[in-house]
């Protein structure tokens, strides 16, 4: 539980899922302070593996990418691109010995209206949690070999 409290979560999300996202996330930001960070994106397709890696590098223990429902992207395939990029980033972090669950994609279900704070609370309340970041020894060895 203590581990869960200390974990830092970063949430990248498509701004189209919640028009009032700026107002909705304030309470959560106030409650949790630096423990949670939101990054609104004009489209989830804007996410790049680099964003996700940098998020982990800057101290996030878990990174979520929240997209609009499949088929509902206003740039047609932004959320599909996001899924592919996240999968690529997951492969990269697995290579260095991190659990791929540290990066997770959340599709907002079609036909529902949700606010970003409700969604974030649901994500934070999940039982499965990966705990603070620590690179496995095996991965570190592999990294060294590559160098």
């Amino acid at each position, binding site marked *: 539980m203590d581990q869960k409290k200390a974990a830092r979560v970063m949430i990248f999300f498509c701004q189209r899922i919640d028009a009032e996202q700026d107002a909705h996330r304030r309470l959560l930001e*106030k409650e949790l302070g630096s423990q949670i960070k939101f990054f609104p994106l004009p489209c989830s397709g804007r996410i790049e593996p680099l964003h996700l890696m940098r998020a982990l590098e800057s101290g996030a223990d878990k990174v979520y990418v929240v997209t609009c429902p499949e088929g509902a992207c206003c740039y047609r395939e932004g959320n599909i691109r996001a899924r592919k990029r996240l999968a690529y980033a997951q492969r990269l972090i697995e290579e260095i010995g991190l659990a791929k669950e540290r990066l997770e994609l959340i599709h907002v279900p079609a036909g529902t209206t949700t606010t970003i704070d409700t969604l974030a609370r649901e994500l934070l309340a999940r039982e499965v949690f990966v705990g603070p970041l620590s690179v496995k020894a095996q991965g570190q060895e592999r990294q060294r070999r590559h160098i």
Partner: protein
Amino acid sequence: MPPKYHIKTEPVPSRFPAITRSGVIAWDEGCLKCHRCVKKDCVYKVYEKRSLEVREMLDSLDTACKDCFRCVQGCPQRLIQKGLNPQYKALGDSYWTPEIIAALWSQAESGRIPVSGAGYGGPFAGPGFDAMWTDMSEIVRPTRDGIHGREYISTTVDIGRKVMALEFDIAGRITTTVPPLVEIPLPIIFDMLPWSPARRQITLALLEAAQALGTFVVMRQSEMSPDVARYLANVILYIDGDMEDLRGEILKNLLIIEIPDGDHVEEMQKFIKEKNSGTLVFIRMELNPTSAERAVKLTRDGAEVLHLVADEYGLEKGKDPCFIKERMREIHGRLVEEGLRDEVTLIASGGIAMAEHVAKIIICGADALGVDIPLLVAMECRVCRRCKEGIACPVELDSVDPLWGAERIKNMVAAWHSQLLEVLGAMGIREARRLRGEMGRAMFFEDLEKEVFASMGKRV
């Protein structure tokens, strides 16, 4: 003739990439791997110099892009798109619009007048200051070279009570006591901030900028700290505590003290004058429907400067509030009717968001004005008001470097100063003092509407 007032500026880069109006949305998937990619053809090298700001995860693509759409049109697979950025639209609110915030950022960064090359695409009238047009009939002279070169246009204003006539005794000596008068080189003072994160660094930035510009910062008595000691000549101390707490040496060094309006205002003014007769006393009045009567009474009672304050949207207190420009016109008009206007100085604060508001509020009757939120915006504030709710500032204003902040503020004020000169030049006025109350040289949409449509029976 005194030397020309000039603010030296130089570009001061932002700490965080600005939130831009539009963003690049480019897919890599499906790329045909053309021999010559359109991204390589970008004349601004936006793709080559691409970087990521990690604290806010802002991509340099968006800030560096100049909206030429060359890549968007050139990609054979149509993989690059430009879209409006919803985060930009969410900046500020209906008064502090994203356009105002972005223009202030650009002025603070460059120190120059923002130029939009595609003309003005907006409506010709709107609420508040947008319902006011100034007469620019002298547009052919002086030339721009004149404004910044040969011609001398003064933006200096005098703050204090003026005597209408001097009296002499038989021996020819002046018997009139001349009240203290402070001259500031531009009609702008820095007012108290309605909200901000922890103030220490921000205050130092304001003081540093005020010192360099030759103006003043209004500071609460409770915010005084040893750091402020070397800036006392640029501080207007606002008394929000016990007057007896003021040490004699502070009173000696302060040029201006501000007191809140209230029942004991005369006693407070007398107390300050007894300690140091050379101190100028501002009376801070919150605007309300009875402000004009109150201003007349206070002026008759010997007030030196009335600091008239509206809220951050330029609105007064009370139900169905009036906008600052209307109330200032009324107060100025009443004082003129009573023959008291030249005796007292009026300073207006609240809702001053753009350079044009400086000229407009002076035309409405203010001698000078107080700026607040734009000072924060110059230091990259996004007017999200998270600090007001106790949430961490997204641009870490609480840890701003005072010297960097001061340079940004100086740049913004320099751009405003240049724009004031443009307005004065275009109106054929050579002094900011003479712009005060020049309502005959401006048109007010509400008045025109009434004039044109009232006779037709339209309710306006």
